[in-house]
């Protein structure tokens, strides 16, 4: 009898607990504690590591912020960070692993277009989600990829037009020898032709190559009004050092870069860069409340000397857009999330960003900044309102652009960059 007096209340409690458990572990319920796994796929070693590591930091920070607020529908996000080693086939392999082995629901990653193009077929094969944070040359669209960086019309085209009207009409194009600079310069060629401007030279340096002397000499010789720079990775350091050295005392030729952000400035050296321009959607110097919060949080977490940059910000809000979509879909399954992603907007550090349901790119404000002595950008021009992303510039048809890409791919022996060996440096 005495035993029952204890046993029955216990049974009631147990019963209640079981019912609650069953109730709240039902799919989509708030007590379902199973974390949502996501992959973070960037180069932590190799030539791209210097650029990609801060992007990883920003991605992890967004995940941490969301987790601190209780996760998505009560589920925490569990990031699995993987090193792509600046090696594109390895990226593809790691993406495959993340999806099939680790069973991630989304992958955040890549910097170079070569990397993205290696990963794209894997993502599409598994109908998963890939969120790509870099400005890029466009000419691509995938139902499985959310592009949070800018399309050409959100960076390159307005910047060239601005340069044409504010700096001069003679341009020298220099870039790394892979698909982004090649395509960007093709777009720029089309545009400058329309604008009746002049391209005085066009040169490509293999990724990771430090030998820039000849190219710089060529530039000086051709005397352009402006250098349009699409060099990526540590070649930039050599290039700007060399340029700065040669220009010493002479008139400075302004450089408009598409891949130099606050993150790269310290490595290249502020002194080598003061007065040059870059076009981005985001600068650390944007005075909005959201941006101040983002910058402060980042510095608090990673150190006061750490700058924030466009790709970092794009990676950061990419996590938020995805998380909102998961919440709205009530599920982390890629198919449901992809559908919900199409109508997401987020008040990001750069301003309101919205997913374009037509293209899976984001509506973004374009800005042009001038590098000051603090290694920051003074914003000299802004589009004020977000622009609709147009991944295929209207100067050529989609078929023409696809053929253009394919020709390079074939030329480089089924690679998205020339001389793949240099990447290993």
């Amino acid at each position, binding site marked *: *009898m*005495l*035993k029952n*007096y204890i046993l*029955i*209340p216990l049974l*009631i409690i147990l*019963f*209640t607990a079981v*019912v*609650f458990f069953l*109730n709240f572990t039902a799919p*989509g*319920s708030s007590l379902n504690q199973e974390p949502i796994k996501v992959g973070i796929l960037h180069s932590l070693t190799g030539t791209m590591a210097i650029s990609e590591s801060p992007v990883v930091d920003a991605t992890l920070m967004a995940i941490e912020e969301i987790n601190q607020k209780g996760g998505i529908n009560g589920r925490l996000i569990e990031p699995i960070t993987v090193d792509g080693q600046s090696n594109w086939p390895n990226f593809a392999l790691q993406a495959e692993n993340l999806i099939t082995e680790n069973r991630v629901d989304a992958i955040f990653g890549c910097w170079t277009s070569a990397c993205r193009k290696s990963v794209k077929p894997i993502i599409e094969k598994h109908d998963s989600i890939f969120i790509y944070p870099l400005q890029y040359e466009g000419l691509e669209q995938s139902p499985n990829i959310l592009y949070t960086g800018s399309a050409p*019309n959100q960076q390159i*085209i*307005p910047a060239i*037009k*601005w340069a044409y*009207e504010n700096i001069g009409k003679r341009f020298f194009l220099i870039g790394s020898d892979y698909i982004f600079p090649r395509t960007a310069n093709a777009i720029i060629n089309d*545009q400058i*032709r*329309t*604008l*009746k401007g002049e391209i005085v030279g066009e040169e490509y340096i293999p990724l990771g190559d430090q030998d820039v002397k000849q190219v710089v000499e060529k530039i000086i010789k051709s005397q352009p009004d402006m250098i349009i720079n699409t060099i990526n990775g540590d070649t930039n350091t050599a290039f700007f050092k060399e340029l700065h050295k040669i220009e010493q005392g002479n008139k400075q030729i302004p450089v408009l870069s598409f891949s130099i952000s606050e993150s790269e400035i310290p490595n290249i050296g502020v002194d080598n860069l003061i007065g040059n321009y870059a076009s981005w959607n985001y600068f650390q110097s944007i005075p909005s409340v959201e941006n101040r919060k983002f910058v402060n949080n980042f510095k608090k977490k990673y150190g006061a000397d750490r700058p924030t940059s466009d790709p970092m910000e794009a990676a950061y809000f990419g996590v938020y857009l995805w998380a*909102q979509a998961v*919440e*709205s879909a*009530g599920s982390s399954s890629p198919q449901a999330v992809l559908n*919900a992603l*199409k*109508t*997401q*907007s*987020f*008040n*990001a550090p750069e*301003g*309101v*960003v*919205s997913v*374009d*349901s*037509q293209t899976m790119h984001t*509506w973004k404000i374009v800005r042009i900044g001038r590098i000051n002595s603090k290694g920051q950008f003074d914003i000299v021009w802004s*589009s004020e*309102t*977000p*622009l*609709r992303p*147009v991944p295929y510039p*209207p100067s050529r048809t989609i078929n023409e652009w696809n053929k253009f890409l394919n020709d390079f791919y074939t030329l480089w022996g089924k690679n998205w960059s020339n001389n793949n060996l240099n990447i290993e440096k």
Partner: protein
Amino acid sequence: MNSLNKYVNTIKKRFKESSFVVYILLICIIPQLIIIYLTYGISESGLRKEMESKLNIVADNKIIAIDNYIFNAQNEAKILAYNPDIVQAILEIDSLPPLENNKQKISEIAQKITPYLSYLMALSGYDNIYFISPKNEILFSLAKDQEYRVETSQSISSLPELASVVERAKILMETEVSHFSPSQVANQQRAFMAAPVISQGNVIGVLALQLNINEISNILNASTGSNISLENIVGIPTQNSSVRLMLPLKFDKDKKFIDQENPTDRATYDYFSKSTHGGNLKSSIFTDYRGQTVISVARYIPSLRWGMITKIDTSEAFSYIAQLRRSILWLLGISLPLLALILYKVSKKLQQSKELLDNIINSMPSQMVIFDEKGQITLWNNEAEKKSGVPLDKTKNKPLTTILPYLEQAEQKILEAISTQEPKKIDKITYSTPEGNVYYEALTYPLAGKDFNGTALLIQDITERVQLMESVQHQDRLASIGLLVAGVAHEINNPLNFITSNVKSLRNDINDVLEILKKYTNITPATVASMPALHEELKKIETYKEEIDLHYTLEEINKLLNGMDEGAQRTSNIVKGLKTFSRADDSEMKSVDILEGIESTLTLLKNSYKNRIEIVQDYEQPIPPIDCYPGKLNQVFMNILSNAIQAIPDKGTIFIKITKGPNLINISIRDTGAGIKEAHKNKILMPFFTTKDVGQGTGLGLSITYNIILDHHGSLVVNSEEGKGAEFIITLPIKQPSKIKSPNEK
């Protein structure tokens, strides 16, 4: 104070009594309520999720439809800008000389493309098409309102929205759309779509379409199913904490702003304003501008920079839940009292039977203690609690002797019985108190229930019984002695006769001898002087000697003295035996030779068996002294031996056999008598059981015997077959476990 305590106690008691009923009620009703609550909760949260996802779908569809409309308009503007006829017309206008009266010429050129444009506008619903020069002058425009008239006099500066979007289109070299803003005409909201017109790489002008907000209104208000209260609100933030509504509200067509300052708008503003600043929001339930509670989701429309909320009244959205709630309340209202009543009845019955059981247990004059498998007391009756003086809940982990100190003597046995779960009877537990010794009898038996394995301990106060038994024992002894006296008298009579009869003969013989002595005294010195006188006297003596036969007489005296000696000896033996038997001095345990006791008993009983029964003694020598109360032990021998003698009607044999164990001795007394009837075997140790005629025996003998043996920590085994005699085997420890106070000591 006293009456208050009484009152409190009554209440406590009442509560204790009814708590059982309340408990059962709770046990049955709580899970039911929980299930109902959970079912309701699941339905409610499920419905809310469903409603959220429905609102999300509606909102997503609306903003995708709006974006499609804008995207298509952008594409149409682009296509128009590429149209060779249009490019041609603009080139022609550009080539005109800059003269004041160009209007006519421009009109003529424009007329060429007017039919195509009119057709397009009719299809697409654009209000105006503007053609703007690179220098931001409106070359001409085509309006929808009055038969598509061409206007040429308009200045772009009167349309600031148009001017800014044209500028953006030129810089970005893309088709751009302006904000919707009110036009001067008819307070209509309108926006402009501007596409650069490019010819041979040159921007030769900008083509702008004027969009009518009605198109978007149509999209937003297109069918949303049967939901009466579903509403989409679109707006943009203004400078001063309000949201400008871009389309009329469904339920308040005149409202222009949702204002934070306005108390009725505040909740709507707080939610809505966030969506106008970008970001899709979690669904929220709040009170809208009508004072209705609504559930809402929010979206941002990037192409128009509008916020949008899609909401529905909760009264409509959750009507099913309201109905469910009503049903549940009704159901509970009816079923709960019924259930409570039934349960009350059932539990009352249960309580009654429980009370009866409690009553039975508690009214017992004995103490009942229930132990669980671990030896903890789980239950006891009132008597036990009273005796212990310790409350039941304080007994945990306390040694048994602390709780029930009077069981100290038997603690080992009880603990053993609890652990082995075997029934056990512990006959006599002595506990001395200042008032005297108290005796208990303990009985343990296992409680093997389905879900309870424990041991019951039944303790009975047997002090009165023990005291009675002791007095009976004493009386029995006196009675035995009384019975003995007759035999003893007879025994003593014989040797006494020896003595008395011998005394008479001895006196005669001695008188004769004395006469001789007297005759010698007649010889005096005078007689000696006369020889014949001496002779005479001597002759007389000699004659007398022959007369009395002196030789024989002296021999007889010796014989008589010997006989008397033997008689005295035999009497002395009997008296000694009696003394040994009664042993009135044995209040303490002594180490004693039991053979002495057996011998004296046999001596005392000799009269009843001599010449009739042969006693065969077989002892395993040497027999060590035994710790005992010798008198009591003799009583045991007396009882068993006299029973054996009585059991042999005529001639027979009694075998007394003593064997030794390491710490004990066995005394077997076997007779060849009538034996014990099968039916009597179980009863012979009971007090007052006798097979003898009334008045012949008390029926206490064996019962007392058994008690005495127990006092000695020994045991008694009886083997018997009817007609073949009986064997009583007494087993006694040589050394007592501990010196125990005599039961006689008070």
